[in-house]
């Protein structure tokens, strides 16, 4: 006998670290997906507390609880925390859990890098949140960081820039991993046009992410050098141009908003067919619609800066290109509706959130179209109408999709069911309060209430009070979500393999991608 096996190989990675070290060193996609989702939930509450402080201040005109600079810090940090801390990591967590399962891969393509991508985030946000305690306070120039205002930030400024860099690196590494996994690790029978929509939308999202992150990194770096190293990229006195920053920022920013919605489209395209017990209507048109939205997102950034005084040709170009996006978006909404049409529908919690997504996201899409009309935007720009628009697409859009996805896949992840009655309570509370919260903002905006101010004229009081009540209702309803998830994971009923009667796809059944097709059948002997 000649074995060349060493003791080492025999016990290769046999002793997995336990406790906290397990989570620090893990390269397993399920661990990392869980980390991302838990992180995202924590950030949702951190950002949520800021939002409630904002809404408390706005309950009445005049200054109640805080000085205006702190209020502005809250608005700025709320935006950064929600976008980079809650929504994006939420989607990346879902990607980590689902993509390997959906394409039949044993793990993500680059597990070690996956670990780094996650662990950069807690550092980035610790840095960012620590700025609240620095001289000059946290950044207060808005999440869009426009110069020259943002350059007035105190000691926090370099930390802001560094934190944004870290978030960017994390996103880029996450995106590269997702691309490598989807392109390279699919099971043999899964061609591109057979991939689940969630996988497709993430592939396109990852591609977008990689395209725009260097632009953001460049933008904040130029802010840094303008402030500390005497450059004048955005400084008019030195021959620079502050509007250049807006171009650069929105070249990143608009694709970024699609980065936050395309995976949501994917989730909804998984959930609606399941609970309609019908295949997705128009699969390939969904894929092409997603790709067109991604392409168009590169040429519409100017709609965020109609009021900077650009030439008429620019206004018209950005107006029409923006309106074009409504076409593929409309295709999607049509397809979801057509999938439900004459389906045998049932309304478990994930489906409720998905249907609410379709309706409420569409409201956000319509207000987006209103904002895309140049002369109208001159009126609406920087008012609460914009705030209403992007909260409909981001909260009832992106966040509802993530919540729907958690309800939908949680039984698969934990092997346990959540409490359906509580889930329905969570849905109805969230959906009612979210509209109480954001719908009045449309009226406030149309009536001319500007965004990002701690005080307002008396005539805006009523709608602001309604919105604040909605905010607290919505905020506290999310505690129920935490309880439901916790309860499901610890003491939920055992879930079946398939979980949902109408579910299809590799993650639900033992997949048969026929890896053994070349086998001679082995005889079964007992």
């Amino acid at each position: 006998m000649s074995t060349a096996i060493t003791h080492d190989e025999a016990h290769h990675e046999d002793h997995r670290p336990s406790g906290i070290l397990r989570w620090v060193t893990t390269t397993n996609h399920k661990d990392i997906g869980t980390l991302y989702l838990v992180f995202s939930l924590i950030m949702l509450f951190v950002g949520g507390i800021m939002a409630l402080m904002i809404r408390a201040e706005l309950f009445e005109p005049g200054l109640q609880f805080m000085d205006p600079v702190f209020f502005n810090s809250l608005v700025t940090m709320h935006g950064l925390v929600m976008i980079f801390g809650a929504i994006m990591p939420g989607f990346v967590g879902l990607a980590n859990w689902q993509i390997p399962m959906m394409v039949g891969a044993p793990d993500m393509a680059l597990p070690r890098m996956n670990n780094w991508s996650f662990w950069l985030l807690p550092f980035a946000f610790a840095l960012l949140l620590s700025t609240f305690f620095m001289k000059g306070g946290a950044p207060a120039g808005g999440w869009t960081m426009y110069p020259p205002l943002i350059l007035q930030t105190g000691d926090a400024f370099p930390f802001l820039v560094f934190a944004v860099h870290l978030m960017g690196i994390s996103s880029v590494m996450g995106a590269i991993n997702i691309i490598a996994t989807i392109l390279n690790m699919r099971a043999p029978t899964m061609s591109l046009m057979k991939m689940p929509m969630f996988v497709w939308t993430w592939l396109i999202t990852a591609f977008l992410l990689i395209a725009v992150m260097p632009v953001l990194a460049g933008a904040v770096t130029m802010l840094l050098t303008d402030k500390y190293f005497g450059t004048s990229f955005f400084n008019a006195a030195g021959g620079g141009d502050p509007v250049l920053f807006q171009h650069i920022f929105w070249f990143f920013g608009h694709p970024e908003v699609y980065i936050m919605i395309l995976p949501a489209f994917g989730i909804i395209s998984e959930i609606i067919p399941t609970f309609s017990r019908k295949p997705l209507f128009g699969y390939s048109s969904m894929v092409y619609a997603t790709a067109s939205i991604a392409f168009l997102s590169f040429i519409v950034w100017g709609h965020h800066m109609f009021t900077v005084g650009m030439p008429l040709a620019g206004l018209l170009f950005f107006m029409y290109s923006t309106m074009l996006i409504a076409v593929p978006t409309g295709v999607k909404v049509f397809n979801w509706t057509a999938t439900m049409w004459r389906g045998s529908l049932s309304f478990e919690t994930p489906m409720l959130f998905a249907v609410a997504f379709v309706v409420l996201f569409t409201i956000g899409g319509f207000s987006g179209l209103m904002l895309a009309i140049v002369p109208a935007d001159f009126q609406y720009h920087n008012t609460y109408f914009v705030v209403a628009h992007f909260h409909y697409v981001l909260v009832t859009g992106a966040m509802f999709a993530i919540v729907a996805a958690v309800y939908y896949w949680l039984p698969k992840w934990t092997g346990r069911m959540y409490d359906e009655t509580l889930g329905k309570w969570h849905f109805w509370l969230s959906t009612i309060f979210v509209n109480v919260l954001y719908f009045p903002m449309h009226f406030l905006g149309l009536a001319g209430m500007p965004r990002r101010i701690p005080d307002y004229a008396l005539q805006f009081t009523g709608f602001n009070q309604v919105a604040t009540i909605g905010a607290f209702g919505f905020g506290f309803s999310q505690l129920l979500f935490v309880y439901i998830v916790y309860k499901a994971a610890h003491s939920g009923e055992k879930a079946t393999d398939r979980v949902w009667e109408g579910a299809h796809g590799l993650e639900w059944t033992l997949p048969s991608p026929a890896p053994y097709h070349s086998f001679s059948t082995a005889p079964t002997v007992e």
Partner: protein
Amino acid sequence: MVAKERDPNTADSRFVLRPNRSLSWGATKWFFAGSCLLYACIAVFFLAMGAWPILPFAGLEVIVLGAGLYVSALRGKVCEVINVTGDTIEVQSGTLGKMRSYRFPRFWTRVSLRADEWYPSRLTISVHGRGLELGRFLNEEERLELAQELTRAVAPTLWVP
């Protein structure tokens, strides 16, 4: 992917284990080139507007993307070959061209699968407590099925031809 051959006369068999790879090296290069082109266009566009710091970031990122795709392709080249012949089991593992080989006496060899609900299961082939892990790069279903097939193949007495 697992490919298996079995000699019906001798109950000898051979398994070839390779990870699934869905992108050929040629396609990888095309994808990378296309991505570089798009990202270069963006960086050059901003360069022309005077915002040159975007270029180095785009460059760095392209390097990481390239490295990621390369590493992923490289890891696709690993291979394990299990030959069950007569009274020995020979396992060769490594990348093509650089294979290490291990031999086990067939009648003392155990195939064991340790399943875990959360982490991937682990398939080991061992003799007197010393063993080798097989098919870490396979997906769960492939590994479970391989475990069954391999157990049967290794224990010839269980075979009823």
